[in-house]
């Protein structure tokens, strides 16, 4: 059996039971009593700041009051009315920077109402009861193409189906779910929840998902426009930024998103190889997820290295603290210079940096970290805009509720400019685009 100290990239560094425990639900479901106690802490604020902070504007005080009043399923309905992926968002939202960060009890006591966990209590209760809470309107005879079965596409498809339109979702990968299925740390959404949620969402009817259909490869925007009354693009970001450091093509260097996707698709994590010395380059959520999960798989040393200062990390303070508690060493103000090794990576060389008014500057000092596995998590890019859509800052330009520069084509989620790249933001954009499409189709 391997151990954390075994050199190279190997599987089974920890006992299978330990790995299973490491990847168990990070925030287990609140039971009914725990939920009521947590719900009792809500002040039912006037014009509540938590609602303002939620990209989907869920009426949080209302759903918490419904839990308090013993009706978690009514609470779930309040949530799903605004956010059909409320179950996933309850698990993966960075609540500490959104609703819980805005909670008046966070300001008052540093202990916000546990909105995320309460939301999960409500949505899980409703979903466990089976059935689907929404019915379709009379068929309109309109057909809408949705590209990408991630949060934006699914939210858009569900809302369109609810209004009576027929929807075909074209998904490049084998499974729907987008980053909920292929990204995001496994311990945030264990038990195959992403697929369960998609199956539950599809129960509304009127939505067909075609997998293995990538835009630009299997389908074209022009083709979709010809065959549908409207098109929604929510295919996310397919490209990955390059490190631009010498030796980046050495064995053992890979994109963090690929590692996370492979991890998410591996049923038995004790067969998933990981390095002894893992270096993750980047300062966002993808970097945190890659670093923490490497550690949980049994890597002896994991460092997450970010080129700018700690104040610029895009992962939240909560997530950084989580990584540090898991044993990840977080290094800031260090930019990769070269990946050293003979065939396979052995060391990564970094230059210390400092933030100056004129931008980031190397201090002249360097250091090396031993590495047998390097994950690049320095941002994703749109892999070329389909058709001749206008682009803004490397992403699809939109105005209003996701209208692109091409008539009849809407877009939302990570592939568009504007909003944070979060599941909840994608849901809001998909939902709002659906309403706009519906208005356009029924005008």
């Amino acid at each position: 059996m391997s151990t954390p100290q075994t050199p190279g990239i190997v599987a089974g560094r920890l006992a299978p039971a330990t790995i299973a425990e490491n990847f168990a639900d990070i925030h287990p479901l609140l039971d009914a009593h725990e939920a009521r106690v947590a719900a009792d802490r809500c002040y039912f604020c006037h014009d509540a700041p938590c609602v303002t902070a939620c990209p989907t504007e869920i009426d949080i005080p209302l759903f918490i009051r419904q839990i308090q009043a013993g009706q978690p399923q009514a609470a779930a309905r309040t949530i799903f009315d605004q956010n059909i992926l409320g179950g996933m968002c309850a698990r993966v939202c960075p609540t500490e920077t959104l609703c819980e960060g805005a909670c008046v009890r966070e300001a008052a006591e540093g202990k916000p109402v546990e909105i995320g966990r309460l939301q999960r209590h409500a949505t899980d209760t409703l979903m466990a009861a089976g059935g689907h809470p929404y019915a379709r309107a009379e068929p309109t005879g309109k057909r809408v193409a949705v590209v990408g079965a991630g949060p934006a596409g699914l939210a858009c498809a569900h809302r369109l189906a609810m209004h009576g339109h027929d929807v075909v979702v074209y998904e490049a990968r084998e499974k729907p779910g987008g980053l909920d299925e292929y990204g995001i740390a496994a311990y945030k959404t264990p038990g195959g929840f992403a697929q369960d949620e998609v199956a539950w969402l599809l129960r509304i009817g009127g939505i067909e998902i075609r997998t293995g259909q990538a835009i630009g490869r299997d389908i074209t925007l022009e083709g979709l426009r010809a065959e549908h009354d409207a098109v929604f693009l929510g295919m996310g970001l397919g490209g990955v930024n390059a490190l631009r450091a010498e030796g980046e093509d050495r064995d053992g260097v890979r994109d963090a998103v690929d590692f996370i996707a492979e991890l998410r698709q591996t049923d038995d994590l004790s067969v998933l190889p990981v390095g002894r010395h893992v270096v993750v380059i980047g300062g966002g959520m993808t970097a945190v997820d890659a670093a923490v999960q490497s550690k949980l798989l049994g890597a002896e040393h994991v460092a997450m290295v970010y080129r700018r200062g700690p104040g610029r990390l895009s992962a939240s303070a909560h997530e950084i603290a989580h990584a540090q508690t898991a044993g990840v060493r977080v290094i800031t103000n260090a930019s990769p210079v070269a990946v050293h090794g003979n065939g396979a990576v052995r060391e990564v060389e970094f230059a210390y940096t400092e933030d100056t008014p004129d931008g980031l500057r190397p201090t002249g000092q360097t250091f090396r970290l031993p590495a047998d596995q390097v994950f690049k998590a320095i941002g994703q890019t749109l892999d070329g805009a389909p058709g001749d859509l206008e682009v803004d800052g490397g992403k699809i330009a939109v105005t209003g509720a996701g209208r692109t520069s091409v008539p009849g084509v809407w877009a939302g989620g990570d592939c568009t400019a504007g909003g944070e790249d979060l599941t909840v933001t994608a849901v809001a954009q998909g939902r709002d685009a659906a309403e706009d499409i519906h208005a356009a189709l029924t005008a």
Partner: protein
Amino acid sequence: MANLASEFLGIRSPNPFWLASAPPTDKEYNVVRAFRAGWGGVVWKTLGLDPHVVNVNGPRYGVVYGADRRVLGINNIELITDRPLEVNLREIKAVKRAWPDRAMVVSLMVPCDEDSWKTILPLVEDTGADGIELNFGCPHGMSERGMGAAVGQVPEYIEMVARWCKKHTRMPVIVKLTPNITDIRFPARAARAGGADAVSLINTVSSITSVNLDSFSPEPMIDGKGTHGGYCGPAVKPIALNMVAEIARDAETRGLPISGIGGVTTWRDAAEFMALGAGNVQVCTAAMTYGFGIIKELTAGLSLYLDDKGMALSDLVGRAVPNVTDWQYLNLNYVTKARIDQDSCIKCGRCYAACEDTSHQAIAMKPGRVFEVIDAECVACNLCVDVCPVEDCITMERLAPGTLDPRTGQVVGDGHADWTTHPNNPMSRAAE
């Protein structure tokens, strides 16, 4: 540490905390545990004549919860003791002999005829008990048989039975009053007229705690049916405080010793009852919820409070009674305005919602969720203070006499002015 030794009707106890006549005082076993824990005395669970009553064999308690299943109120459909009279008398005697420094009062309920009382009183006297409490309050079961609240709701019966008891025993007689009446002063006056040495109150409030919305039966449910029970615990304390105060300040009952009962949970509750005129307090629900161990908090807390105030226990009794008055005598020149401390405000907006929706639109919500009182609208109702989750964030500040009240456009008057002299009062007396 302040001395908590208490004397009520000449009955001595090491502290003024007695366990009320209820399940905790039904047996020697329980009472000995209570005395070991430090309780000052007990009122033994109500005795009746044999054959002893029976209780239901299903649930006998219902409950009302606050947050985190905190017990706010319990309702019960239990009757008086369901053990033979002889067993209870034997145990009372044994306990009193073993614990001579503790108060032992025996609660009684027998049919409304002189012979019944004449029969039971010597038996109780023989136990060495310190006194008796007449249970004229039990609102369920016994009242249907012409006892308990059925007596307590008719002042003439109270007076009659109290008189019989005074005639047939040398023991002090406490009359326990039911709150299930319209004006507590009438039964209290009747007790005094009958020669009772004291009243104790309140007994439980007739209640249905909840309805099961699946079986459509009241709780506690017995085979699909329910009946009203007696409600007690923190939820009834405000009702009890008022009734105690009414008796303490009534011209006809002033000076009549009162044993305060109703939701005493912490030392503070006890101090409040005593400030309103109770000579001691009786506790039940708190003990039933948390066990006898709470007596340590009750005694230590009351003692510390008295030390802080530099008061003896006897100084506390009735201290607040002179400040209980009728509405018509409240000073209309006492003009206050709500003040919001912006530093402690957490911006929840509850004051705003409450005032805007249900009061006087006297709070402005400004950019950045800043909430400010509009003095020209504030009637000083106190609702914002009550709903604010932060203690002392909103306070009521008095406008000094001579300043302008922007709401009324009038200068706040000096001295006292009340409804009795107000020009709008058709009955007002001309100011002299």
